[in-house]
């Protein structure tokens, strides 16, 4: 039965990792504007400015 304890531990850790990813995404501003990115992908070539990380110092 020990394996169940282990599995619970693993599943919770994994879920926490996902939660952290979500936190990062929200903090990085990815949820601020959910409309423009969908328009951006319509232009065939990426803007040359390769710096794609969202701004953080807002």
């Amino acid at each position, binding site marked *: 039965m020990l394996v169940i304890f282990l599995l619970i531990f693993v599943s*919770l850790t994994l879920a926490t990792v*996902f939660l952290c990813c979500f936190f990062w995404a929200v903090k990085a501003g990815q949820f601020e*504007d959910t*409309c423009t990115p969908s328009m951006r992908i*319509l*232009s065939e070539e990426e803007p040359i400015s390769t710096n794609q990380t969202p701004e953080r110092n807002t």
Partner: protein
Amino acid sequence: MDSVLDKRLPEPGLTRAVAGLSRVLGGGSDTVEHAAACYHCGEPCRETQLVEDQKSFCCQGCLFVHDLLKENGMEQFYGLSRHPGVKVKAPKRGNDWAYLDDPEIQNRLLDFSDGRTNRITFHVPGIHCVACVWLLENLFRLLPGIGKSEVNFPRRELSVRYEAQGIRLSQLVGLLVSIGYEPELNYARLDKPPARATHKRAWLQIGVAGFAFGNIMLFSLPAYLGMDKFSGPAFKTLFGYLGLVLAAPVLIYSAADYWRAAGLALRSRILTLEVPIALGLFALYSRSLFEVIWGRGEGYADSLAGLVFLLLCGRAFQQVTHERLAFDRDYKSFFPLSIKRLEERGERNVALSSLEVGDRVVVRNGELIPADSRLVSGCGLIDYSFVTGESEPVEKNPGDYLYAGGQQIGSRIEIQTVKPVSQSYLTSLWNHDAFAKKKREDLNTLTNRYSRRFTKIVIGIAITSALFWMLRGDASRGFKAFTSVLIVACPCALALAAPFALGTAQRALGKKQVYLKNIFVLERLAEVNAIVFDKTGTLTCSQGLEVRFEPGRFGQQCLSTDERAWVCALAAQSTHPHSRQIATALSNPTKAPAEIRDFAEVPGGGLKGRIAGHLVQLGSRTWLERLGIHVDPHQLSQGSTSFVAIDGKPRGAFVFSNALRPQTEEAFADLGGRYELSLLSGDNERERSRFLALFGKGARLHFNQGPLEKLAFIQKLQEGGKRVMMVGDGLNDSGALRQSDVGVAVVERTGVFSPASDIILEAGNVARLEQILRFARSSTRVVRASFGISALYNAAGISIAAAGILSPLICAVLMPLSSLTVLLFGCGMTTWAAKRAGLTPATPS
């Protein structure tokens, strides 16, 4: 939320539609000779045929942008959508933006600066399509020194980073203007914008609650399915503790707003809905603690997390934001950021904030008078229609007093300011009490009124059942019953009723260009029983006088086709709005304009000229009579007129009247029965009889109303127990809009300035008011019915709980089930009501 397909144009869409049609007829080629669509902006090319690479352009501005993009290898812009550009308005001179380089102003405009890099955010109303986004995000290719630029489409915002040493702010703005994306720079821009509600916290709270809900559910399911029978008590205890641990952040972080709101409500002694929610949450967690620690059960952690998760989802749903609209603008958004001050070295653009009393200011055609001033030189013709409601431009002579906010039409004038901007006649309206106090708080909502009774009943039942079991000597069952009642009565379904029903309603209205500030406006709309209208710009079109020719009596005849062409040619020579109106009304594209000799324009008088050998005169009665031509005096009473005489013989007059918006008559026929209607106009009484017919007998019509009188009128109606809706458009309605229960600002185009209000209404919808009000009533009825449904569930739950036999399983099923019912009922019924009211988005334009 704007969809990507929402390509409504910043300019009136008709021209583009026409251009599109000609494109279709022309077999897809853009180089059709007649009315070819501009390759850049899609407007028909009229006068000069600018053709390059077999592409036509409507103006130099558009051609310039095309060449600029081509030079920089950015022609991809034109592949992203058809005619994606924005028509470039009259080019401004290079030094027009120089005032932006003033360090003090720059400090107030920049978001961020570290000496090397600056970042600034502009509101650019012209952004309208995918190509705009692409172009503005590739700005760095057009001007070295620009770094990353990013567009936020729903907000129509552009934020740009640029090298502080490399380029100046004036250069950046100049570039944007030259490619057609003029940023909105008005006086309000100097105030630091209030920190915009970011949704980050709300998202995180939902995330934490959802995370806990899902995980706890995984641990609870085995218990509900009877797993612990063969897996032993160790898991049960472990799962209980895990649930408690996972639910703790939900209780503390995700539900934080509910605790705060409940605390606030108790302190002000109002039983808002948050009070029973907080009680329920508290009961849930303490009961779970008790059960887990003493080994009595697995606790209610799953219900707690689920409850908070659902509540937060409801809250997110009700926050429909129309982000590109501002509902709280004051006069500062109406005034420009800069004015042209006359200094010793000539005109200079300076910030409005540095304008002082006694300064000389130059105002050109279409520009605003920034502060109350005196006309020094030039011929003033001031359009006050937006500011005071007067429909006719007013002529002013040197020495006359000019109120702030008027728009100069015609030639350049010089004025000298008499009062500072904030103390001017109109802007001082904002010092009134109505602006100081907050508008009727959101506390008195349907939900809170219902929950006041609800909370008292629930607490009553909880105490009674606890006492009942204690008196029978079963104290532990009494405690159980007490907490169970609080748990099961936690008004999750109740809390979701209004957000989902009214949120759906708000979305349905938004699709019809009726933008509500928040969902509570709908509740107030449903109670409206008196409607007050403004006239100019609200019931009548703000632009667009109707003009018709009326021959005088005594056998005078209508104008012949030739005569019409003569008058048209004469009127086309003048910039006076009346002349322009006549010229537009009479213009005939098939005839070449007639040649005029001996043309003369007498300011304040009229026009005269000799065409095809005939003397044509067009002007005021006094002017003609001074020349010895006697017109039919009967025609003077018809309002604003321009008289025509040909070869010294009076022929009749052009009569001007404001055109009512289409379908206004039908709309008033529907409104008349149910609501008390009034008209408050800043204009004179000339059209009283016309509006009396429209409003019906018994309606109150007041003319020559100032902004404070309008406000006072609304106040008086409210004191008489009326719920007042004010429909207006101008700055002079601001006080009344603020004071009324529901303030409706009418706009010709979304995105342009509108005074602070609860609803922003696209002008075509004024005729739909009855529909909108009816829909508001039916959606609040849906909310009431949802209350009924949640009450049924509560009654069932409470009877189980009062008996003291509530189990976590029942709780875990009952709560989501009731919430889901309310959610589906609310959304479904409101959608149906919208369809019935004819508000379904039938054909997206």
